[in-house]
């Protein structure tokens, strides 16, 4: 009776060890899947926010009259929450670049690039063009 009880205990322990091994292998695989899902999620959130920042900057820049558009090519520094920040504390950079200086009666290209300050990699780039009429010199 006693021998039989010890035998069952041993079987139980062996089963427990095997299950812990099995669970650790499975958990290692599943953790990788969870990390991958987190990575995807962070990438898509970053891209969505970069799109919004680039679009709003593009709309704002395209609506500027010629006199203000001439001085609009600049770098805007943004913090982790996409609010305006200093260069030293910035997490993202928004570059507004005209291909040529905007002038009356001229078609000019506008490129807006959202960069990561840490790596310098471009997250999102938006390209468009703007024509300023010769007579009015304002937004068309």
């Amino acid at each position, binding site marked *: *009776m*006693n021998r039989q*009880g*010890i035998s*069952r*205990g041993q*079987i*139980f322990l062996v*089963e*427990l060890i095997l*299950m812990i091994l*099995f*669970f650790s292998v*499975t*958990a290692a695989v*599943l953790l990788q*899947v*969870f990390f*991958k*899902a*987190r*990575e*995807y*999620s962070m*990438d*898509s*959130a970053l*891209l*969505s926010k970069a*799109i919004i920042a*680039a*679009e709003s900057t*593009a709309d704002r820049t*395209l609506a500027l009259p010629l006199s203000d558009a001439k001085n609009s090519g600049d770098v805007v520094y943004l913090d982790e929450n996409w609010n305006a920040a200093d260069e030293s504390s910035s997490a993202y950079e928004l570059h507004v670049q005209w291909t040529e200086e905007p002038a009356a*009666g*001229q*078609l000019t*290209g*506008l490129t807006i690039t959202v960069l990561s300050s840490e790596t310098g990699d471009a997250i*999102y780039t*938006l*390209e*468009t*063009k*703007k*024509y300023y*009429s*010769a*007579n*009015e010199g304002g937004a*068309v």
Partner: protein
Amino acid sequence: MKTTNKMCFGVGLPSIIVIFVTLCLTTLAALSLMTASADNKLAEKSAAYSEAYYTALGEAQEWLSQSDAMLQAGEMPETTKNFPLSDRQALAVTLQIAGSRCRIESQKLVVTEQWNYDQYAPQYGDIIVP
């Protein structure tokens, strides 16, 4: 009198618990990966759409500059043009000619190709209203 060492847990119970927990975690991991992947694809589609929109907007500005130049040369440019964004959508731009200059009167997104509703067979007795 000898006492027997009986285990309070039966053999096989850890296996059942571990298999159950593993199945739950696997389901959760698969669902979170699928959701994150779908979100990522949606963000990429949104990025592509936004790029296409601003490219069309740039093309419209280019057309405006060409029309302005044509007007200066004494030719009459066409006043409406569509700039495609995708297979089914376009940016419709209308010009207004004022004297020797032209300006954009309106620009709006229009659907260039409607869904062919007849290709979908009605199911469950529902009615497709175009």
